[in-house]
């Protein structure tokens, strides 16, 4: 990823278009391009209300400047998003900041960077087809309510769907 100058260091800003092109390849990752920095996303953002570091407008600005190296890091501020979509409701440009943030998390995943809790849930899904792990106690509890045992997920089918197509991998480069 090319190094972009920060917007406030007095130099001319060099936008890292490579980063933006990578982001635009993610589903709805291109939406940030329409952001005009009005800040409507901030007022109703619960994470911004209760955090000193999370601000969806700033995240969109960093995307516009191509400052990927500030977002695509361990313990990224992106993980403070509550995914409530208030920002998407308020945005006059239909940018859907929450959705752009998920696309940025897809870029983090490409770098194999996840918070431990998140990685654990993803592993559970990829191995069992469910995000909540099963145990023998589950079926016993279900029986008490007269509910049938949990049925296995056809993992052969799920695993086949998780692999990117060769041309998709090409797209992502």
């Amino acid at each position, binding site marked *: 990823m090319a190094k972009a100058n920060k917007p406030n260091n007095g130099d001319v800003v060099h936008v890292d278009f490579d980063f933006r092109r990578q982001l635009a390849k993610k589903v709805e990752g291109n939406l940030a391009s329409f952001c005009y920095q009005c800040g409507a996303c901030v007022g109703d953002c619960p994470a911004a209300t*209760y955090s000193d570091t999370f601000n969806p407008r700033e995240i969109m600005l960093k995307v516009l400047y191509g400052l990927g190296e500030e977002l695509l890091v361990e313990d990224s501020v992106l993980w403070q998003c509550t995914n409530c979509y208030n920002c998407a409701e308020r945005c006059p440009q239909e940018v859907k900041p929450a959705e752009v943030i998920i696309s940025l998390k897809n870029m983090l*995943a490409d770098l194999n960077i996840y918070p431990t809790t998140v990685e654990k849930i*993803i592993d559970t899904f990829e191995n069992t087809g469910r995000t909540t792990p099963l145990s023998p106690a*589950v079926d016993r509890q279900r029986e008490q309510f007269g509910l049938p045992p949990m049925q296995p997920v056809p993992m052969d089918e799920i695993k086949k*769907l998780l692999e990117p197509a060769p041309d998709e991998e090409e797209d992502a480069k």
Partner: protein
Amino acid sequence: MKPFAFFPGCLIPVRYPAMEFAIRQTLPKLGIEIVDLEGASCCPDPIYFKSKDKVAWLSVAARNITLAEDLGLDLFTNCSGCTATLSEAYHLLKDDEIREKVNKRLKRIGRKYKGTSKIRHVTTLVRDEAGYDAVRESIVRPLDGMKMAIHYGCHLLKPSKIMNVDDPNNPEVLEKLVEALGATPVRHRNWYLCCGKACQEESIPLNMMHALLNTVKDEEAEILCLICPTCFSQFDHGQMKVSKHFNDDFHIPPVYYFQLLAYAQGVPYEKLGFERQRFKPEALQRFATSSVQVES
């Protein structure tokens, strides 16, 4: 009875089977036939797996929807997260390019997404297919005057252009459903707040829940009525954490709406699994003998 394909997801059938039990008890009384889907997986969740790879996420979601398409039925879920994923997939898959990409993957398992099954949350299914009056008529013990705080959560309503459920700034579906029980819905000052589950920085959801629980307490609500199992886990287990962290003492039982409906329809309190909750809605028991008990 009108048939609908039932997508139970993970959290409810695995961790909160009492909620699934309540769905299965209540819907047939409202003229809705539950048809089980075979071979369904996680929706997949709109927070964690979606963060890894949106195209894989969409492909698995599309596969789940095709299971309902095979039956020629619309699909309903009992979880706001599942509704979010499947509704968003339904929306995104209207785009030719995305649908083609996803169908290329589905071809590997001999499936094709067509877009013929609509996605509903059980709350809106009841509103649109049965109606509030049918809910009122199904009740044998009205929960007269019980004050219930409302928690919509986020993913039932937003993004509103995708969910198409209600006005996200002034929704009414949950209030109307609570009124149909005979109870009094309370829209507390923080009704709009999220439960915070998706946020990976612990202090943020703690502060959010603290603010929300305080306004519910101010209104003297006896129950926090919600329709999402993730919000439920936040406000049940999380409530104790909040009390400890802020040296407070909250006792506001969160309850999934359909367990309340089942109770009002006559299912005995002991059968509804409330003993598994950290905060039990014991206040409900004052209605136990208020009318004819109907054995389910």
